[in-house]
């Protein structure tokens, strides 16, 4: 388990920390003067630097150090918080994420480019010397500091690594302009030497235009107990003697890579979800509930063992056994529920990512976009949450890029200049509804139609219902963007979104009003692993119908069956409902039972009846996926294992309803 690996734990912590800091940064764009937010950002970076160094993420610590310094200056009022600074820092956050995840040396170049921009963004008329890595070297070589420091004896036991401190000091200046000499005078005779103590002191000369604070920052964790003397270098002091390589800090290792191309790492939304790995945070109270249930289970188990050993037979034994069986049943169902809840995470984590995305998109498109989120406390299965990230990214991008009009167009249409994207979640029964709403121009029907006709999806001039026309955009290869932009319009997308959602056993609905905007509703089942099912028999096979889709069960008598032949419709409360004879659909080759049943299932407003031979009862269905060779089958969404070890297939409601609708249309057309 990754839980025992401190580096993995650090990665998770760092991802959380970066997320929190990023949120503060995004808030800061709206309120540049907020002291509290600046402090939050500073503290976030400070913690990241400290723990990064502790876990050996030296590149991360070094990089973060510069950002921290920048915000320290802002905090102290030495530099203003500007939109530029925030934008660059957001880029820097991405870089930190990359550094948390890999130690690819190529990242150093990108990091340097970011620091250069950070430096520019921070440039204030006064001094900008502390961002030393990218400061031009030669002109500043006359300035500098002379340091003498000793660490407390127990420094190494407390987790301080003097080498890292020396590296950090050396990094403050250009390579070769740091001279570090160890002071061995305090080392005791060998007999008294405790090798775990730090007896060395150091004499350091740094030649470069650096701020005193930068030096203090290096010692920030050890400052309280150490001895440190800092004085400015005398300008007249002779050039640095050639340092003895034995005692020189390995400046080259940490020295910045020569200035290279401006390569900010590409930001991919996929990477964001990688950070947390496969662990999930669970509130302790939920674990307590789980523990209680397990405790009860142990008690019931011992009751069962007692009964087995007691030799009580006959009615008394049977009664005792039944009582235990009921207890186990209750516990199993409660255990299932509590275990399921362990996998639930609030959707806020998912939504949080979109603030940044929308911020970036607003920047790229030049539009003013406001993101409103609602229902963030709605909980959803962790796996589902992860798999939803990419589809929602795509939908939000689409809304920003195609949905929202540029400010000018909005103004002339009498709308507010800033567009709004609303991201809302709510739980409804066994499903979570996620809606993505924009107040943009809505979907242009003519363009959809033209595109569909051009792609041969629709006969020219053919009549089509509005809802069906809108569904066209989910067709593979469909993209209405006349101009392919960086954001969307690559011709892949909506069909992939649809497939992903359907893969989660969810559905996607789209409504759009020209001039007013569009709403996309995703309906996602709460969990993927277990559903309540209705077990039915068709011929000799057992099948499971998801209970959530079942509306009612009625009997189909033999006479009605014969009378309804050929039209396959029943009247249900004044509505004609088409039905499918599963026996025929599945070609069981068996005779129908004398009293067949119709299970009426529905999704949305559409209903269809399924004729089965027998309804066996409700069944706790643990969903197993079908093998690759059976995945293309339209009628089944999975399979489950029954109590006797046999297999029952799970009916795919969406497909069957669609099949019923087709049949109805055929019959209407025929008659």
């Amino acid at each position, binding site marked *: 388990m990754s839980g025992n690996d401190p580096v993995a734990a650090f990665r998770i912590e760092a991802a959380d920390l970066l997320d929190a800091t990023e949120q503060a940064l995004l808030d800061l764009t709206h309120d540049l003067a907020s002291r509290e937010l600046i402090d939050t950002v500073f503290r976030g970076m400070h913690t990241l630097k400290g723990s990064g160094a502790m876990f050996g993420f030296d590149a991360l610590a070094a990089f973060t150090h510069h950002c921290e310094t920048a915000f320290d200056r802002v905090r102290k009022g030495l530099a203003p918080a500007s939109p530029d600074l925030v934008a660059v820092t957001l880029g820097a956050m991405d870089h930190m994420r990359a550094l948390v995840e890999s130690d690819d040396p190529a990242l150093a170049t990108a990091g340097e480019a970011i620091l250069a921009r950070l430096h520019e963004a921070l440039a204030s008329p006064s001094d900008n010397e502390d961002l030393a890595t990218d400061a031009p070297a030669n002109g500043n070589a006359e300035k500098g500091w002379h340091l003498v420091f000793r660490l407390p004896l127990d420094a190494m036991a407390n987790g301080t690594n003097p080498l890292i401190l020396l590296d950090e000091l050396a990094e403050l200046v250009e390579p070769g302009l740091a001279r570090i000499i160890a002071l061995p005078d305090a080392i005791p005779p060998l007999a008294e030497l405790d090798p775990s103590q730090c007896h060395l002191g150091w004499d350091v000369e740094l030649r470069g235009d650096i701020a005193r604070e930068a030096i203090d920052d290096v010692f920030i964790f050890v400052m309280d107990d150490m001895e440190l003397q800092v004085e400015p270098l005398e300008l007249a002091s002779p050039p640095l003697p050639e340092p003895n390589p034995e005692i020189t800090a390995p400046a080259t290792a940490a020295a910045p890579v020569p200035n290279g191309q401006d390569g900010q790492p590409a930001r991919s939304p996929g990477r964001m979800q990688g950070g947390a790995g496969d662990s999930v945070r669970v509130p302790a109270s939920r674990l307590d509930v789980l523990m209680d249930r397990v405790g009860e289970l142990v008690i019931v188990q011992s009751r069962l063992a007692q009964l087995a050993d007691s030799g009580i037979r006959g009615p008394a034994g049977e009664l005792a056994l039944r009582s235990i069986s009921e207890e186990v049943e209750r516990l199993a169902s409660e255990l299932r529920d509590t275990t399921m809840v362990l996998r639930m995470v609030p959707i806020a984590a998912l939504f949080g990512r979109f603030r940044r995305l929308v911020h970036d998109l607003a920047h790229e498109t030049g539009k003013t976009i406001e993101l409103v989120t609602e229902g963030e406390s709605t909980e959803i299965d962790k796996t589902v949450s992860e798999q939803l990230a990419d589809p929602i990214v795509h939908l939000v991008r689409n809304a920003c890029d195609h949905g929202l009009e540029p400010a000018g167009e909005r103004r002339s249409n009498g709308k507010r200049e800033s567009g709004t994207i609303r991201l809302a979640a709510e739980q409804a029964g066994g499903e979570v509804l996620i809606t993505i709403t924009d107040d943009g121009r809505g979907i242009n029907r003519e363009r959809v139609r033209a595109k569909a006709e051009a792609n041969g999806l629709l006969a020219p001039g053919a009549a089509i219902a509005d809802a069906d026309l809108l569904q066209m955009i989910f067709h593979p290869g469909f993209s209405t963007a006349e101009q392919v932009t960086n954001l969307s319009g690559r011709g892949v997308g909506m069909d992939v979104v649809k497939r992903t959602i359907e893969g989660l056993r969810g559905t996607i609905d789209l409504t759009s009003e020209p001039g007013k905007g569009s709403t996309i509703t995703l309906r996602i089942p709460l969990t993927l692993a277990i559903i309540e099912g209705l077990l039915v028999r068709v011929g000799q096979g057992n099948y499971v119908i998801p209970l959530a889709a079942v509306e009612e069960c009625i009997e189909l008598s033999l006479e009605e069956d014969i009378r309804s032949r050929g039209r396959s419709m029943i009247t249900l409360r004044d509505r004609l409902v088409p039905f499918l004879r599963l026996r025929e659909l599945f070609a069981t080759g068996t005779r129908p039972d004398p009293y067949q049943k119709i299970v009426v299932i529905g999704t949305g407003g559409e209903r269809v009846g399924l004729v089965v031979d027998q309804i066996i009862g409700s069944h706790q269905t643990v969903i*197993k996926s*079908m093998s690759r060779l059976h995945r293309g089958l339209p009628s089944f969404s999975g399979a489950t294992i029954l109590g006797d070890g046999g*297999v029952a297939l799970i009916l795919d409601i969406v497909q069957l309803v669609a099949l019923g609708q087709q049949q109805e249309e055929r019959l209407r057309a025929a008659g």
Partner: protein
Amino acid sequence: MMSMTDPSATRWDEAGQLEVLTFDIGDERLAIEAISIREILDLLPETPVPGAPALVGSVINFRGKIIPIADLHVAFGMPIEDPSPDTRIVVIETLLGGEETQIGLRADKVYEVTLLDRDSASAPPVIGMRWRRTFVRELVRQDQSVIVLPDLPAIFATLERGHAGLDSPLGHAA
């Protein structure tokens, strides 16, 4: 000829030998690399999957996983035989489309794990076979008889390209 980099090429060892399990499908003797065999099962109750291609017409519960049962009689165009006391299910694990997939092969009779020699192997002839040439990787002569090394990925790939070609899903519904 298959190149060495072909993933479906026969993996002869350095001594030019291959450890296989031999079994009968109809009147043909087939061999599958022993390394990809997971287990040999007695017949289990199978669950037919309506609409599935006849080649993989049913599924079983194999240790809590739902795995398909493949009937190679279909691939080789042989009549499907009723199970006999000798019928077994050979569970194999093979790479299909980049995914390790477990499949149960219905075998009419299972023989033994044996060693085949590369020297007695040859590529399938262009003509004169009663099945699709692409379904056979190699033919190996042994003890007066010929053992067929089937190309399972090629056989199952016919399913991936669309079920409609072999057996239209729900075709019997209309």
